[in-house]
Protein backbone atom coordinates (compact mmCIF):
# COMPACT_ATOMS: atom_id res chain seq x y z
CA UNK A 1 0.00 0.00 0.00
CA UNK A 2 1.31 3.45 -0.88
CA UNK A 3 1.09 6.26 1.60
CA UNK A 4 -1.59 8.83 0.87
CA UNK A 5 -0.31 11.11 3.59
CA UNK A 6 3.26 11.10 4.81
CA UNK A 7 4.52 13.26 7.61
CA UNK A 8 8.28 13.59 8.05
CA UNK A 9 10.02 14.95 11.17
CA UNK A 10 7.24 17.48 11.65
CA UNK A 11 7.80 20.01 14.45
CA UNK A 12 6.01 22.93 15.99
CA UNK A 13 7.17 25.15 18.80
CA UNK A 14 5.18 27.69 20.76
CA UNK A 15 7.76 29.99 22.36
CA UNK A 16 9.73 27.64 24.57
CA UNK A 17 7.33 24.72 24.34
CA UNK A 18 7.87 22.10 21.67
CA UNK A 19 4.32 20.96 21.03
CA UNK A 20 5.20 18.54 18.26
CA UNK A 21 8.74 17.21 18.10
CA UNK A 22 9.98 15.56 14.88
CA UNK A 23 6.97 13.34 14.41
CA UNK A 24 6.97 11.04 11.37
CA UNK A 25 4.31 8.65 10.19
CA UNK A 26 2.54 7.54 7.03
CA UNK A 27 -1.15 6.99 6.43
CA UNK A 28 -1.72 4.36 3.74
CA UNK A 29 -4.51 4.94 1.24
CA UNK A 30 -7.69 3.31 2.50
CA UNK A 31 -6.61 3.19 6.13
CA UNK A 32 -8.30 4.41 9.27
CA UNK A 33 -5.43 5.91 11.19
CA UNK A 34 -5.86 7.05 14.79
CA UNK A 35 -3.68 9.44 16.76
CA UNK A 36 -4.11 9.06 20.51
CA UNK A 37 -2.36 10.40 23.56
CA UNK A 38 -2.96 12.28 26.79
CA UNK A 39 -4.13 15.88 26.89
CA UNK A 40 -1.39 18.24 25.79
CA UNK A 41 0.44 15.54 23.85
CA UNK A 42 0.36 17.65 20.69
CA UNK A 43 -2.42 15.83 18.84
CA UNK A 44 -4.42 18.91 17.97
CA UNK A 45 -1.28 20.84 16.97
CA UNK A 46 -0.33 17.99 14.66
CA UNK A 47 -3.84 17.92 13.28
CA UNK A 48 -3.91 21.67 12.69
CA UNK A 49 -0.62 21.55 10.81
CA UNK A 50 -1.96 18.89 8.44
CA UNK A 51 -5.18 20.87 7.98
CA UNK A 52 -3.27 24.06 7.17
CA UNK A 53 -4.47 25.96 10.24
CA UNK A 54 -0.91 26.13 11.63
CA UNK A 55 2.40 26.41 9.81
CA UNK A 56 5.01 23.85 10.89
CA UNK A 57 8.40 25.03 12.13
CA UNK A 58 10.13 22.06 10.57
CA UNK A 59 9.54 18.88 8.62
CA UNK A 60 7.28 18.12 5.70
CA UNK A 61 3.75 16.96 5.00
CA UNK A 62 3.13 15.22 1.70
CA UNK A 63 -0.31 14.34 0.40
CA UNK A 64 -0.76 12.21 -2.72
CA UNK A 65 2.83 12.95 -3.69
CA UNK A 66 2.63 16.76 -3.29
CA UNK A 67 3.81 19.00 -0.51
CA UNK A 68 1.01 20.20 1.72
CA UNK A 69 2.88 21.98 4.50
CA UNK A 70 2.64 25.75 4.50
CA UNK A 71 -0.51 25.82 2.38
CA UNK A 72 -3.46 27.76 3.85
CA UNK A 73 -6.47 25.80 5.10
CA UNK A 74 -8.64 26.47 2.06
CA UNK A 75 -5.94 25.28 -0.34
CA UNK A 76 -5.46 22.12 1.75
CA UNK A 77 -9.16 21.40 1.42
CA UNK A 78 -9.10 22.00 -2.33
CA UNK A 79 -6.30 19.40 -2.58
CA UNK A 80 -8.65 16.81 -1.09
CA UNK A 81 -8.12 16.93 2.68
CA UNK A 82 -11.22 17.87 4.68
CA UNK A 83 -11.47 18.36 8.42
CA UNK A 84 -13.94 18.61 11.26
CA UNK A 85 -13.56 20.85 14.29
CA UNK A 86 -13.39 19.47 17.79
CA UNK A 87 -15.50 22.38 19.01
CA UNK A 88 -18.00 22.20 16.21
CA UNK A 89 -18.17 25.22 13.94
CA UNK A 90 -21.33 25.02 11.86
CA UNK A 91 -22.34 28.19 9.99
CA UNK A 92 -24.71 29.20 12.81
CA UNK A 93 -27.53 31.05 11.06
CA UNK A 94 -27.64 28.76 8.03
CA UNK A 95 -29.87 25.73 7.71
CA UNK A 96 -28.39 22.25 8.00
CA UNK A 97 -28.82 21.81 4.25
CA UNK A 98 -27.14 25.14 3.43
CA UNK A 99 -24.23 24.24 5.70
CA UNK A 100 -23.55 21.14 3.66
CA UNK A 101 -24.34 22.86 0.35
CA UNK A 102 -21.48 25.31 0.95
CA UNK A 103 -19.11 22.36 1.10
CA UNK A 104 -20.65 20.73 -1.97
CA UNK A 105 -20.18 23.96 -3.95
CA UNK A 106 -16.41 23.60 -3.73
CA UNK A 107 -16.35 21.31 -6.75
CA UNK A 108 -19.69 22.28 -8.25
CA UNK A 109 -20.75 25.53 -9.81
CA UNK A 110 -24.44 24.79 -9.99
CA UNK A 111 -26.23 25.49 -6.72
CA UNK A 112 -29.01 22.98 -7.39
CA UNK A 113 -26.50 20.21 -8.11
CA UNK A 114 -24.70 21.07 -4.86
CA UNK A 115 -27.99 21.00 -2.97
CA UNK A 116 -28.79 17.57 -4.39
CA UNK A 117 -25.36 16.33 -3.31
CA UNK A 118 -25.91 17.82 0.16
CA UNK A 119 -29.22 15.99 0.47
CA UNK A 120 -27.60 12.69 -0.44
CA UNK A 121 -25.02 13.20 2.28
CA UNK A 122 -27.63 14.26 4.82
CA UNK A 123 -29.54 11.06 4.14
CA UNK A 124 -26.40 9.07 4.70
CA UNK A 125 -25.68 10.84 8.00
CA UNK A 126 -29.26 10.61 9.28
CA UNK A 127 -29.80 14.37 9.10
CA UNK A 128 -32.14 14.54 6.12
CA UNK A 129 -35.26 15.10 8.22
CA UNK A 130 -33.58 17.99 9.99
CA UNK A 131 -32.23 19.64 6.86
CA UNK A 132 -34.34 22.80 7.22
CA UNK A 133 -33.38 23.33 10.85
CA UNK A 134 -30.99 26.13 11.73
CA UNK A 135 -27.62 24.56 12.48
CA UNK A 136 -27.35 25.88 16.03
CA UNK A 137 -30.63 24.25 17.06
CA UNK A 138 -29.22 20.75 16.56
CA UNK A 139 -28.24 18.52 19.46
CA UNK A 140 -24.58 17.76 20.02
CA UNK A 141 -24.59 14.35 18.29
CA UNK A 142 -26.41 15.85 15.31
CA UNK A 143 -23.94 18.71 15.11
CA UNK A 144 -21.07 16.22 15.17
CA UNK A 145 -22.58 14.43 12.18
CA UNK A 146 -23.21 17.78 10.48
CA UNK A 147 -19.48 18.51 10.77
CA UNK A 148 -18.76 15.21 9.06
CA UNK A 149 -21.39 15.80 6.36
CA UNK A 150 -20.06 19.26 5.55
CA UNK A 151 -16.49 17.97 5.36
CA UNK A 152 -17.55 15.06 3.14
CA UNK A 153 -19.37 17.44 0.82
CA UNK A 154 -15.99 18.78 -0.33
CA UNK A 155 -15.25 15.30 -1.68
CA UNK A 156 -12.05 14.65 0.22
CA UNK A 157 -9.70 11.72 -0.31
CA UNK A 158 -8.58 12.09 3.28
CA UNK A 159 -10.93 12.99 6.12
CA UNK A 160 -9.42 14.47 9.28
CA UNK A 161 -11.61 14.00 12.36
CA UNK A 162 -10.83 15.95 15.51
CA UNK A 163 -12.40 14.12 18.48
CA UNK A 164 -15.59 13.48 16.64
CA UNK A 165 -16.73 11.02 19.34
CA UNK A 166 -16.16 13.34 22.30
CA UNK A 167 -19.32 13.87 24.30
CA UNK A 168 -21.28 11.13 22.51
CA UNK A 169 -23.10 8.41 24.42
CA UNK A 170 -22.05 4.82 23.67
CA UNK A 171 -24.97 4.18 21.31
CA UNK A 172 -24.21 7.37 19.43
CA UNK A 173 -20.54 6.44 19.33
CA UNK A 174 -21.44 3.10 17.76
CA UNK A 175 -23.62 4.89 15.21
CA UNK A 176 -20.76 7.19 14.25
CA UNK A 177 -18.37 4.22 14.11
CA UNK A 178 -20.73 2.46 11.70
CA UNK A 179 -21.00 5.56 9.51
CA UNK A 180 -17.23 6.00 9.36
CA UNK A 181 -16.70 2.31 8.60
CA UNK A 182 -19.13 2.53 5.72
CA UNK A 183 -17.38 5.61 4.35
CA UNK A 184 -14.04 3.84 4.66
CA UNK A 185 -15.38 0.84 2.75
CA UNK A 186 -16.23 3.23 -0.09
CA UNK A 187 -12.57 4.17 -0.28
CA UNK A 188 -12.23 7.14 2.05
CA UNK A 189 -9.01 7.35 4.04
CA UNK A 190 -9.55 8.63 7.58
CA UNK A 191 -7.18 10.14 10.11
CA UNK A 192 -8.72 10.69 13.51
CA UNK A 193 -7.66 12.14 16.79
CA UNK A 194 -9.60 10.39 19.47
CA UNK A 195 -9.88 9.92 23.19
CA UNK A 196 -12.70 7.41 23.10
CA UNK A 197 -10.80 4.11 23.10
CA UNK A 198 -13.97 2.17 22.36
CA UNK A 199 -14.12 3.93 18.98
CA UNK A 200 -10.40 3.71 18.33
CA UNK A 201 -10.37 -0.04 18.92
CA UNK A 202 -13.41 -0.53 16.71
CA UNK A 203 -12.22 1.65 13.86
CA UNK A 204 -8.50 2.05 13.56
CA UNK A 205 -6.22 -0.11 11.48
CA UNK A 206 -3.17 1.86 12.70
CA UNK A 207 -2.58 3.80 15.88
CA UNK A 208 0.03 6.43 16.61
CA UNK A 209 0.57 7.40 20.24
CA UNK A 210 1.87 10.86 21.05
CA UNK A 211 3.21 11.95 24.41
CA UNK A 212 4.85 15.31 25.11
CA UNK A 213 5.01 15.98 21.39
CA UNK A 214 6.84 12.85 20.40
CA UNK A 215 5.65 9.57 18.94
CA UNK A 216 6.11 6.86 21.57
CA UNK A 217 4.42 3.97 19.81
CA UNK A 218 2.87 3.07 16.48
CA UNK A 219 1.23 -0.01 15.06
CA UNK A 220 -1.86 -2.17 15.16
CA UNK A 221 -4.26 -1.07 17.93
CA UNK A 222 -4.23 -4.38 19.81
CA UNK A 223 -0.46 -4.30 20.04
CA UNK A 224 -0.18 -0.59 20.88
CA UNK A 225 -2.55 -0.77 23.86
CA UNK A 226 -0.32 -3.41 25.44
CA UNK A 227 2.83 -1.37 24.95
CA UNK A 228 4.16 -0.61 28.45
CA UNK A 229 5.14 2.96 27.54
CA UNK A 230 1.62 3.65 26.29
CA UNK A 231 0.01 2.09 29.32
CA UNK A 232 2.14 4.18 31.61
CA UNK A 233 1.76 7.55 29.87
CA UNK A 234 -1.78 7.39 28.63
CA UNK A 235 -3.99 4.48 29.42
CA UNK A 236 -2.86 4.06 33.00
CA UNK A 237 -3.71 0.94 34.93
CA UNK A 238 -7.26 0.96 33.56
CA UNK A 239 -8.05 -2.46 32.13
CA UNK A 240 -8.89 -2.36 28.43
Amino acid sequence: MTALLSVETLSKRFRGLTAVDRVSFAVPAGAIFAVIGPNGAGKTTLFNMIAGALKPDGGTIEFAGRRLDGLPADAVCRRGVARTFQLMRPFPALSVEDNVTVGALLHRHDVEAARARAQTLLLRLDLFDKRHRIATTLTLPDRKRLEVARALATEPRLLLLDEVMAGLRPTETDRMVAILQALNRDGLTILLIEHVMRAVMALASHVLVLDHGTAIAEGAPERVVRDPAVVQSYLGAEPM
Partner: protein
Amino acid sequence: MIARLTAGVSRRAAVALALLSAALLIAPWVVNDYLLTILILILYFAYTGQAWNIMMGFAGQLSLGHALYIGLGGYVAATLFTRFGVAPWLGLLAAMPVAALCGAIVGYLAFRFGVTGVYFAILTIAFAEFARIGFDHWDFVNATSGLFLPVKQYTHNDLWRLRGDPTMFYYVILAATAAALLLCQLLIRSRTGYFWRAIREDERAARAVGVDAFRYKMIAVMVSAAVTAFAGVFYAFFYNNLFPEQVFSLPRSIEIILGPVIGGIGTLFGPILGAFVLTGLAETLNSALTAFGVDLPGVTQVFYGLCLLIVIAALPDGVWPPLARRLGLSEDKK
Protein backbone atom coordinates in the same frame (compact mmCIF):
# COMPACT_ATOMS: atom_id res chain seq x y z
CA MET B 1 -31.53 32.34 -13.91
CA ILE B 2 -35.25 33.08 -14.07
CA ALA B 3 -35.91 30.31 -11.57
CA ARG B 4 -33.38 31.84 -9.23
CA LEU B 5 -35.03 35.23 -9.53
CA THR B 6 -38.26 33.85 -8.15
CA ALA B 7 -36.76 31.28 -5.79
CA GLY B 8 -37.82 31.69 -2.19
CA VAL B 9 -40.44 34.30 -3.08
CA SER B 10 -43.83 33.16 -1.88
CA ARG B 11 -46.98 33.92 -3.86
CA ARG B 12 -48.05 36.31 -1.15
CA ALA B 13 -44.73 38.12 -1.24
CA ALA B 14 -44.89 38.34 -5.04
CA VAL B 15 -48.32 39.95 -4.84
CA ALA B 16 -47.18 42.37 -2.16
CA LEU B 17 -44.13 43.29 -4.21
CA ALA B 18 -46.27 43.82 -7.31
CA LEU B 19 -48.64 46.11 -5.38
CA LEU B 20 -45.73 48.12 -3.96
CA SER B 21 -44.18 48.41 -7.42
CA ALA B 22 -47.47 49.60 -8.88
CA ALA B 23 -47.90 52.18 -6.13
CA LEU B 24 -44.37 53.47 -6.66
CA LEU B 25 -44.87 53.60 -10.44
CA ILE B 26 -47.95 55.81 -10.25
CA ALA B 27 -46.67 57.88 -7.31
CA PRO B 28 -45.46 60.90 -9.38
CA TRP B 29 -49.02 61.46 -10.63
CA VAL B 30 -50.47 61.37 -7.17
CA VAL B 31 -48.03 63.15 -4.90
CA ASN B 32 -46.87 66.75 -4.88
CA ASP B 33 -43.34 67.92 -5.65
CA TYR B 34 -42.28 67.97 -2.02
CA LEU B 35 -43.37 64.38 -1.43
CA LEU B 36 -41.76 63.32 -4.68
CA THR B 37 -38.42 64.70 -3.45
CA ILE B 38 -38.84 62.72 -0.24
CA LEU B 39 -39.58 59.59 -2.26
CA ILE B 40 -36.43 60.17 -4.29
CA LEU B 41 -34.46 60.47 -1.06
CA ILE B 42 -36.04 57.28 0.30
CA LEU B 43 -35.23 55.33 -2.85
CA TYR B 44 -31.72 56.74 -2.85
CA PHE B 45 -31.19 55.34 0.65
CA ALA B 46 -32.90 52.08 -0.29
CA TYR B 47 -30.46 51.75 -3.16
CA THR B 48 -27.31 52.64 -1.21
CA GLY B 49 -28.46 50.44 1.68
CA GLN B 50 -28.85 47.55 -0.72
CA ALA B 51 -25.36 48.17 -2.10
CA TRP B 52 -23.81 48.35 1.37
CA ASN B 53 -25.71 45.24 2.41
CA ILE B 54 -23.83 43.19 -0.20
CA MET B 55 -20.66 43.72 1.79
CA MET B 56 -21.98 43.65 5.35
CA GLY B 57 -25.21 41.69 5.16
CA PHE B 58 -24.00 39.03 2.76
CA ALA B 59 -20.25 38.78 3.31
CA GLY B 60 -20.07 40.10 6.88
CA GLN B 61 -17.55 42.88 6.20
CA LEU B 62 -18.47 46.10 8.01
CA SER B 63 -17.77 49.21 5.95
CA LEU B 64 -18.24 52.55 7.65
CA GLY B 65 -16.72 54.42 4.73
CA HIS B 66 -19.12 53.85 1.86
CA ALA B 67 -19.22 57.60 1.24
CA LEU B 68 -15.90 56.95 -0.50
CA TYR B 69 -17.64 55.14 -3.35
CA ILE B 70 -20.50 57.65 -3.49
CA GLY B 71 -18.00 60.49 -3.78
CA LEU B 72 -15.84 58.72 -6.33
CA GLY B 73 -18.85 57.82 -8.46
CA GLY B 74 -20.11 61.38 -8.34
CA TYR B 75 -16.78 63.02 -9.02
CA VAL B 76 -15.80 60.73 -11.89
CA ALA B 77 -19.10 61.15 -13.74
CA ALA B 78 -19.46 64.87 -12.98
CA THR B 79 -15.88 65.65 -14.03
CA LEU B 80 -16.26 63.71 -17.27
CA PHE B 81 -19.53 65.56 -17.92
CA THR B 82 -18.42 69.10 -17.12
CA ARG B 83 -14.94 68.87 -18.66
CA PHE B 84 -15.42 66.55 -21.58
CA GLY B 85 -19.16 66.48 -22.13
CA VAL B 86 -19.34 62.74 -21.48
CA ALA B 87 -22.89 61.62 -20.72
CA PRO B 88 -23.44 60.28 -17.18
CA TRP B 89 -24.32 56.77 -18.36
CA LEU B 90 -20.95 56.56 -20.08
CA GLY B 91 -19.42 58.23 -17.04
CA LEU B 92 -20.93 55.45 -14.98
CA LEU B 93 -18.91 52.96 -17.00
CA ALA B 94 -15.80 54.75 -15.74
CA ALA B 95 -17.12 55.47 -12.23
CA MET B 96 -17.93 51.86 -11.42
CA PRO B 97 -14.46 50.47 -12.21
CA VAL B 98 -12.82 53.37 -10.36
CA ALA B 99 -14.91 52.66 -7.25
CA ALA B 100 -14.33 48.91 -7.59
CA LEU B 101 -10.59 49.52 -7.87
CA CYS B 102 -10.56 51.65 -4.73
CA GLY B 103 -12.63 49.00 -2.97
CA ALA B 104 -10.07 46.47 -4.10
CA ILE B 105 -7.23 48.54 -2.61
CA VAL B 106 -9.00 48.88 0.75
CA GLY B 107 -9.92 45.19 0.66
CA TYR B 108 -6.48 44.02 -0.36
CA LEU B 109 -4.74 45.95 2.42
CA ALA B 110 -7.21 44.72 5.02
CA PHE B 111 -7.71 41.11 3.99
CA ARG B 112 -4.09 40.43 3.06
CA PHE B 113 -2.82 41.69 6.40
CA GLY B 114 -5.55 40.23 8.56
CA VAL B 115 -7.32 43.48 9.44
CA THR B 116 -10.78 42.35 10.50
CA GLY B 117 -13.88 43.41 12.41
CA VAL B 118 -13.73 46.81 14.04
CA TYR B 119 -10.25 47.48 12.69
CA PHE B 120 -11.47 46.86 9.19
CA ALA B 121 -14.33 49.30 9.78
CA ILE B 122 -11.85 51.94 10.96
CA LEU B 123 -9.74 51.37 7.85
CA THR B 124 -12.78 52.02 5.64
CA ILE B 125 -13.39 55.30 7.50
CA ALA B 126 -9.74 56.22 7.04
CA PHE B 127 -9.93 55.76 3.27
CA ALA B 128 -13.04 57.89 2.98
CA GLU B 129 -11.24 60.57 4.99
CA PHE B 130 -8.14 60.31 2.75
CA ALA B 131 -10.40 60.90 -0.24
CA ARG B 132 -12.12 63.83 1.44
CA ILE B 133 -8.83 65.55 2.24
CA GLY B 134 -7.34 64.65 -1.13
CA PHE B 135 -10.27 66.04 -3.11
CA ASP B 136 -10.25 69.13 -0.87
CA HIS B 137 -6.81 69.92 -2.26
CA TRP B 138 -7.26 68.79 -5.83
CA ASP B 139 -7.63 71.77 -8.13
CA PHE B 140 -8.64 69.69 -11.14
CA VAL B 141 -11.95 69.03 -9.39
CA ASN B 142 -12.11 72.58 -7.97
CA ALA B 143 -10.92 71.51 -4.51
CA THR B 144 -13.00 73.04 -1.70
CA SER B 145 -14.94 75.33 -4.05
CA GLY B 146 -16.82 72.31 -5.30
CA LEU B 147 -17.87 71.01 -8.66
CA PHE B 148 -21.05 72.39 -10.23
CA LEU B 149 -23.08 70.98 -13.03
CA PRO B 150 -24.72 73.45 -15.44
CA VAL B 151 -28.35 74.03 -14.52
CA LYS B 152 -30.93 75.69 -16.74
CA GLN B 153 -34.62 75.38 -17.42
CA TYR B 154 -35.07 72.26 -19.48
CA THR B 155 -37.88 72.17 -21.93
CA HIS B 156 -37.81 68.40 -22.01
CA ASN B 157 -36.29 65.57 -20.01
CA ASP B 158 -32.96 64.42 -21.37
CA LEU B 159 -32.58 60.96 -19.90
CA TRP B 160 -29.30 60.31 -21.67
CA ARG B 161 -27.66 63.37 -20.11
CA LEU B 162 -29.69 63.13 -16.89
CA ARG B 163 -30.97 66.67 -17.20
CA GLY B 164 -34.59 67.11 -16.33
CA ASP B 165 -37.30 67.40 -13.70
CA PRO B 166 -37.64 65.43 -10.46
CA THR B 167 -40.10 62.99 -12.03
CA MET B 168 -37.38 61.77 -14.38
CA PHE B 169 -34.94 61.41 -11.50
CA TYR B 170 -37.60 59.58 -9.53
CA TYR B 171 -38.02 56.95 -12.23
CA VAL B 172 -34.26 56.61 -12.64
CA ILE B 173 -33.69 55.88 -8.94
CA LEU B 174 -36.78 53.65 -8.82
CA ALA B 175 -35.44 51.56 -11.71
CA ALA B 176 -32.00 51.45 -10.06
CA THR B 177 -33.46 50.31 -6.73
CA ALA B 178 -35.45 47.58 -8.48
CA ALA B 179 -32.33 46.51 -10.36
CA ALA B 180 -30.31 46.42 -7.13
CA LEU B 181 -32.98 44.27 -5.48
CA LEU B 182 -32.90 41.81 -8.39
CA LEU B 183 -29.11 41.78 -8.39
CA CYS B 184 -29.04 41.00 -4.67
CA GLN B 185 -31.62 38.24 -5.08
CA LEU B 186 -29.44 36.66 -7.78
CA LEU B 187 -26.22 37.15 -5.80
CA ILE B 188 -27.41 35.71 -2.50
CA ARG B 189 -28.61 32.53 -4.20
CA SER B 190 -25.48 32.10 -6.28
CA ARG B 191 -22.39 30.05 -5.46
CA THR B 192 -20.66 33.29 -4.52
CA GLY B 193 -23.58 34.17 -2.25
CA TYR B 194 -23.25 30.86 -0.41
CA PHE B 195 -19.54 31.43 0.08
CA TRP B 196 -20.19 34.98 1.31
CA ARG B 197 -22.67 33.75 3.91
CA ALA B 198 -20.25 31.03 4.98
CA ILE B 199 -17.52 33.66 5.49
CA ARG B 200 -19.96 35.91 7.33
CA GLU B 201 -20.99 33.11 9.67
CA ASP B 202 -17.54 31.66 10.40
CA GLU B 203 -14.58 32.51 8.23
CA ARG B 204 -12.37 29.76 9.63
CA ALA B 205 -14.98 27.11 9.03
CA ALA B 206 -15.52 28.51 5.52
CA ARG B 207 -11.84 28.15 4.75
CA ALA B 208 -11.92 24.60 6.13
CA VAL B 209 -14.40 23.67 3.39
CA GLY B 210 -12.13 25.17 0.76
CA VAL B 211 -13.61 28.67 0.41
CA ASP B 212 -10.91 31.11 -0.70
CA ALA B 213 -11.99 33.74 1.83
CA PHE B 214 -9.64 36.42 0.51
CA ARG B 215 -10.96 36.12 -3.01
CA TYR B 216 -14.63 36.16 -2.05
CA LYS B 217 -14.23 39.08 0.35
CA MET B 218 -12.49 40.98 -2.45
CA ILE B 219 -15.40 40.23 -4.78
CA ALA B 220 -17.84 41.49 -2.14
CA VAL B 221 -16.03 44.80 -1.64
CA MET B 222 -15.64 45.40 -5.36
CA VAL B 223 -19.23 44.59 -6.26
CA SER B 224 -20.53 46.66 -3.35
CA ALA B 225 -18.30 49.62 -4.31
CA ALA B 226 -19.26 49.47 -7.98
CA VAL B 227 -22.97 49.30 -7.19
CA THR B 228 -22.60 52.18 -4.73
CA ALA B 229 -20.85 54.30 -7.38
CA PHE B 230 -24.08 54.63 -9.32
CA ALA B 231 -25.67 56.33 -6.31
CA GLY B 232 -22.83 58.86 -6.47
CA VAL B 233 -23.51 59.55 -10.14
CA PHE B 234 -27.18 60.00 -9.34
CA TYR B 235 -26.37 62.29 -6.41
CA ALA B 236 -24.14 64.50 -8.56
CA PHE B 237 -26.69 64.91 -11.35
CA PHE B 238 -29.65 65.32 -9.04
CA TYR B 239 -28.12 67.94 -6.73
CA ASN B 240 -25.86 69.44 -9.42
CA ASN B 241 -23.04 70.10 -7.00
CA LEU B 242 -20.32 68.17 -5.25
CA PHE B 243 -18.22 69.27 -2.29
CA PRO B 244 -15.59 66.94 -0.82
CA GLU B 245 -16.64 68.03 2.68
CA GLN B 246 -20.13 66.79 1.97
CA VAL B 247 -19.93 63.69 -0.21
CA PHE B 248 -16.97 62.02 1.48
CA SER B 249 -17.93 62.85 5.06
CA LEU B 250 -18.52 60.29 7.78
CA PRO B 251 -22.18 61.27 8.29
CA ARG B 252 -22.77 60.33 4.62
CA SER B 253 -21.38 56.87 5.32
CA ILE B 254 -23.48 56.49 8.45
CA GLU B 255 -26.67 57.55 6.64
CA ILE B 256 -26.13 54.70 4.21
CA ILE B 257 -26.03 52.02 6.88
CA LEU B 258 -29.00 53.25 8.93
CA GLY B 259 -31.60 51.87 6.51
CA PRO B 260 -30.29 48.30 6.46
CA VAL B 261 -29.60 48.32 10.22
CA ILE B 262 -33.17 49.42 10.95
CA GLY B 263 -34.69 47.24 8.24
CA GLY B 264 -32.60 44.11 8.75
CA ILE B 265 -28.99 43.46 7.79
CA GLY B 266 -28.53 40.58 5.37
CA THR B 267 -32.15 40.52 4.23
CA LEU B 268 -33.22 41.51 0.74
CA PHE B 269 -36.10 43.80 1.65
CA GLY B 270 -34.70 45.18 4.91
CA PRO B 271 -32.71 48.03 3.35
CA ILE B 272 -35.76 49.17 1.39
CA LEU B 273 -38.09 49.02 4.38
CA GLY B 274 -35.49 50.71 6.57
CA ALA B 275 -35.16 53.60 4.11
CA PHE B 276 -38.94 54.08 4.04
CA VAL B 277 -39.32 53.93 7.80
CA LEU B 278 -36.37 56.10 8.68
CA THR B 279 -36.50 58.79 6.00
CA GLY B 280 -40.29 58.78 6.06
CA LEU B 281 -40.51 59.31 9.80
CA ALA B 282 -37.68 61.85 9.88
CA GLU B 283 -39.30 63.96 7.19
CA THR B 284 -42.70 63.71 8.89
CA LEU B 285 -41.09 64.90 12.10
CA ASN B 286 -39.39 67.75 10.28
CA SER B 287 -42.56 68.98 8.62
CA ALA B 288 -44.50 68.65 11.88
CA LEU B 289 -41.90 70.75 13.66
CA THR B 290 -41.91 73.30 10.87
CA ALA B 291 -45.70 73.45 11.00
CA PHE B 292 -45.53 74.24 14.72
CA GLY B 293 -42.84 76.81 14.05
CA VAL B 294 -40.24 74.91 16.07
CA ASP B 295 -36.67 75.14 14.84
CA LEU B 296 -34.38 72.53 16.38
CA PRO B 297 -31.11 72.06 14.52
CA GLY B 298 -29.87 68.48 14.59
CA VAL B 299 -33.24 67.06 15.49
CA THR B 300 -33.06 64.58 12.58
CA GLN B 301 -29.79 63.16 13.87
CA VAL B 302 -31.21 62.79 17.38
CA PHE B 303 -34.22 61.09 15.88
CA TYR B 304 -32.00 58.66 13.94
CA GLY B 305 -30.14 57.91 17.16
CA LEU B 306 -33.39 57.14 18.97
CA CYS B 307 -34.59 54.91 16.14
CA LEU B 308 -31.31 52.98 16.25
CA LEU B 309 -31.51 52.57 20.03
CA ILE B 310 -35.06 51.29 19.89
CA VAL B 311 -34.45 48.88 17.02
CA ILE B 312 -31.19 47.51 18.42
CA ALA B 313 -32.77 46.99 21.84
CA ALA B 314 -36.13 45.61 20.73
CA LEU B 315 -35.55 44.10 17.29
CA PRO B 316 -31.86 43.27 16.92
CA ASP B 317 -32.47 41.56 13.56
CA GLY B 318 -34.16 44.69 12.24
CA VAL B 319 -37.79 45.53 11.60
CA TRP B 320 -38.23 43.44 8.47
CA PRO B 321 -37.73 39.82 9.67
CA PRO B 322 -40.43 39.92 12.40
CA LEU B 323 -42.72 42.03 10.24
CA ALA B 324 -42.33 39.63 7.34
CA ARG B 325 -43.18 36.68 9.57
CA ARG B 326 -46.29 38.43 10.81
CA LEU B 327 -47.41 39.28 7.30
CA GLY B 328 -46.57 35.80 6.03
CA LEU B 329 -44.01 37.23 3.63
CA SER B 330 -40.92 35.62 5.13
CA GLU B 331 -37.88 35.36 2.96
CA ASP B 332 -36.16 32.02 3.10
CA LYS B 333 -33.54 31.93 5.78
CA LYS B 334 -30.49 33.66 4.40
